[in-house]
């Protein structure tokens, strides 16, 4: 048996080792530039006042909350089809990151809505969908933790991710249907059309880039942790047998 159980993880560790410092650096640069620009150097919106500054946190985190799940879905499919171990571990690594982004989207969304709706929480379709997404993330993470055998865990969580994705889409549609009559027009409309003005759009782009890079950096780091963890498990198992 070779030192690392599988050849691919070795290559991943090597590549990620040199890529990580760059990822961290770029992440910090983009986040700092984007957020400082957005917070200090943009005007208030005539409709929403200074709350428009929340957009630099809310939109990127909401986008990444969804994208993280999509990445997990793709990684799960790659695991199911090609049994690429790094892929399964990357999906596992991405989940807490996606969950964090979902929570950020929820909190910033609620806080943004508070001045508009006068309440700390509103069952706006978008917020509700993100709340449900949080539950999907919790379930996925919980399933990984509950199963001892790594390959079994990878298989079952992949199936869950697949089925979950279908139901997440269904839920999104159902929640929109559910709340149609109530908050018409009052939901946080974050369409790009509203932000035609470059004044808001450009720092937002930088923030989005920053969050994407943050996601990549965290997934790289966490996948490395997962790979090391599996090697640790394998070595400990060997010790017990010896």
């Amino acid at each position, binding site marked *: 048996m070779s030192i690392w159980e599988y050849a691919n993880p070795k290559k991943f560790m090597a590549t990620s080792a040199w890529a990580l410092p760059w990822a961290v650096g770029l992440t910090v640069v983009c986040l700092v530039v984007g957020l400082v620009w957005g917070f200090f150097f943009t005007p208030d919106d005539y409709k929403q006042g200074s709350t428009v500054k929340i957009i630099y946190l809310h939109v990127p985190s909401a986008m990444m909350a969804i994208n993280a799940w999509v990445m997990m879905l793709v990684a799960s499919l790659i695991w199911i089809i090609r049994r690429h171990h790094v892929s399964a571990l990357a999906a596992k690594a991405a989940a807490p990151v996606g969950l964090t982004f979902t929570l950020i989207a929820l909190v910033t969304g609620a806080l943004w809505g508070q001045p508009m709706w006068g309440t700390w929480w509103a069952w706006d379709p978008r917020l509700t969908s993100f709340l*449900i997404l949080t*539950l*999907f993330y*919790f*379930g996925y993470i*919980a*399933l990984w933790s*509950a*199963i001892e055998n790594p390959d*079994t865990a990878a*298989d*079952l969580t992949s*199936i*869950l991710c*697949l*089925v*979950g994705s279908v*139901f997440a889409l*269904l*839920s999104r*549609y*159902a*929640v929109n*249907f*559910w709340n149609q009559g109530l908050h018409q027009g009052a939901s946080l409309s974050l369409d790009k059309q509203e932000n035609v003005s470059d004044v808001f759009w450009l720092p937002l782009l930088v923030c989005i880039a920053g969050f994407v890079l943050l996601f990549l950096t965290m997934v790289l780091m966490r996948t490395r942790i997962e790979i090391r963890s599996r090697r640790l498990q394998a070595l400990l198992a060997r010790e017990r047998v010896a």
Partner: protein
Amino acid sequence: MRALLLRDLRLAFRSGGGFGLGLAFFLILAVLVPLGVGAEGTILGRIAPGILWVGALLACLLSLDRIFALDHEDGSLDLLATSPLPMEGAVAVKALAHWLVTGLPLTLMAPGLGVLLNLAPAAYPWLVLSLLLGTPTLSMVGAFGAALTVGLRRGGLLLSLLVLPLYVPTLIFGAEVVRRGAEGMALATPLALLAAISLGAAALLPFAAAAALRVNLR
């Protein structure tokens, strides 16, 4: 497949606790809610569709781990896996058995509880119809969740965490049908979607559940 169905039904009715538990829970819920929310008739009537649907949903949840756990423990699941019957068929049959023992009785019991909760008279047929169309999804999705967690010792709570988010579309459309029925509004859309989800789940989830079972039986 019929033999498997009959066997599961016989087991469910025989072991006592399995059958009545969900119904008893449903009843208790219908008693607890007014106690918690207040006895005012108009309020109860307005939330009755939701309470009945959530109650049916939670009651279904109670017996989900029994779908595969008992067979897994005594090895019959392994026998099923090696039998000529395809795993997908076995899963579908077991989900059907669960529905016959849990979902269907809940559906039949719901109108009685609707009386307790001051459900609007116009809503009763829609209550039964929506539950009739929706509870099969609950059983099928539940079977999928049970297949994922069959190997785990304390899988019950995790099962709930996994399955409840999957219940959301069915719950939303089902409760919406009853609510609209109560007010005489058009409900073709949620009804159709409710039925579509059931059909889709019945057609596709057996494959996912069978895959999960095969993984767990390795």
